[in-house]
């Protein structure tokens, strides 16, 4: 009965620890949020299942080639695209091919809100340094404030690969929780009068502007922050494929098959990379808390900057400062939150279109922010 014993020694029952069970519960919670609450399901479901996948207990050091960190395992090959930062740019390609920048183009001053909200990145970097994380780690943690999953994974895979799991999970969790995190901050920092500001209806953007924008936007932002090239280049490339009008079949594949395939692989392996022993630490907990702070600061940054801009804008041109909250990105949830809060105070005040501008600008903003951190700390 040696064989039977041996087989049992391989089984999950023989190798399970309480940490494995905690991780499995965490995975189930994320799947629950995704499926039952419909919060960011496209990522929380794969990440949640990935956590299960990565935390099935098995005999270590037996050369079974099962674990995500073991050379030769299937997960390890699929994880390659994460550790080398290949998946995030490909997702950005797809996002570019599904993003309509008209809202941004129709009211360019709103772009600044997408910049202001990135203060969340840098103040969180600051806070993390203060708490004793190394500079590179602090940079990777700060990017949670960018409220953009692929950017967070890309930067943390370069600056602090060992923290990538918790950073990615924090980023996606808070992006999912944006409808809960943002409204109190938005209400705290605005007066009733400000919340009902009606903005001018947006102009129609001609096709030629939509085609030129990805080219011009790409050249400007990547000249300023060449280290953000993989993200910005793919984002604008995808958008050009979409807007050019002559490469529709490429754009269609980029925003469907390609982005779906990469999302499946990225979500699963990022989830599976969170193995109990390395994940369940106090550091992970403090990163998770810093993430919440980052989202609050980012939201506050956007709102306050909108109020600052209003000091210089003429009556009738004033910005509804709620729109500032959309600058964190978390596309498109935070723009929806703005619309929702706006409607609470004036049922005829549709802010969605006005919030989309800062919202997509926030994606560009956090990519630039990631580029800066990568250049200085990389």
């Amino acid at each position, binding site marked *: 009965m040696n064989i039977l014993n041996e087989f049992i020694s391989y089984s999950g029952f023989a190798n399970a620890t309480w940490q494995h069970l905690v991780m499995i519960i965490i995975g189930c919670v994320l799947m629950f949020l995704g499926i039952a609450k419909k919060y960011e399901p496209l990522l929380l479901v794969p990440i949640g299942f990935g956590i299960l996948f990565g935390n099935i207990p098995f005999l270590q050091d037996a050369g079974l080639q099962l674990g995500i960190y073991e050379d030769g395992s299937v997960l390890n090959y699929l994880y390659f695209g994460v550790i080398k930062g290949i998946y995030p740019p490909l997702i950005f390609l797809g996002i570019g091919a*599904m*993003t*309509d920048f*008209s809202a*941004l*183009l129709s009211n*360019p*001053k709103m*772009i*600044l809100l997408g*910049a*202001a909200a990135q*203060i969340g*990145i*840098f*103040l969180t*970097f*600051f*806070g993390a*340094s*203060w708490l004793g994380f190394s*500079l590179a780690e602090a940079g990777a943690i700060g990017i949670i404030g960018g409220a953009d999953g692929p950017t967070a994974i890309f930067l943390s895979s370069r600056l602090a690969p060992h923290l990538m799991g918790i950073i990615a999970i924090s980023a996606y969790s808070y992006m999912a929780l944006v409808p809960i995190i943002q409204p109190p901050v938005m209400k705290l*920092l605005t007066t009733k009068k400000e919340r009902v500001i009606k903005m001018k*209806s*947006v102009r*129609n*953007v*001609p096709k*030629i*502007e939509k085609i*030129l*924008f990805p080219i*011009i*936007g790409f050249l*400007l*932002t990547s000249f*300023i*922050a060449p280290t953000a090239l993989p993200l910005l280049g793919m984002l604008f490339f995808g958008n050009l494929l*979409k807007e050019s009008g002559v490469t529709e079949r490429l*754009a269609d594949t980029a925003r469907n098959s390609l982005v779906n395939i990469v999302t499946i692989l990225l979500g699963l392996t990022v989830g599976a990379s969170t193995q109990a022993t390395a994940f369940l630490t106090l550091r992970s907990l403090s990163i998770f808390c810093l993430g919440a702070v980052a989202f609050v*600061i980012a939201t*506050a940054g956007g709102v*306050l900057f909108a*109020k600052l801009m209003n000091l210089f804008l003429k009556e009738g041109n004033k910005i509804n400062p709620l729109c500032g909250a959309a600058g964190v990105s978390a596309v*498109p949830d935070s723009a*929806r939150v703005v*619309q929702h809060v706006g409607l609470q105070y004036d049922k005829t005040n*549709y802010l*969605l*279109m006005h919030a*989309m501008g800062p919202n997509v*600008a926030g994606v*560009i*903003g956090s990519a*630039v*922010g990631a580029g*800066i*951190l990568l250049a*200085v*700390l990389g």
Partner: protein
Amino acid sequence: MKKYFIALLLMVSPMLIFAMGIPDENKRMILIVTVVGIIIVLLALSIVSISVAIMSKTIHASENKDSKKVKKIKEAIMSDDDDRTIAIALALHLEKISLDEEEKAILTIQKVIKPFSGWNNKAFGMRNPKLS
């Protein structure tokens, strides 16, 4: 006004505490990265913002002549409830994740909304419109 001041203070306070607390060399580095980082992001997007504004004006100037006719039609359709239409159109977009068919969506919206504004209820029934 007071509460914004408090908010600002709360955001900056760690930096102040930090500036006093830790004496080593890294401190300066951290502060500079934080401040310079924020500035560069703002700078970068300001440049984008300005460039977009210039681009728009240039294109608008050169296009202005021949687009009057198109505008008229659009105005006729979209009338005064501009924002609402667009917001709904956009909301529709977001549901489908693909944001790329503004024109279609607006047209769809018009097909769907207008009949209820009263002036062509009959046409609506006959045209048998199809969403998406």
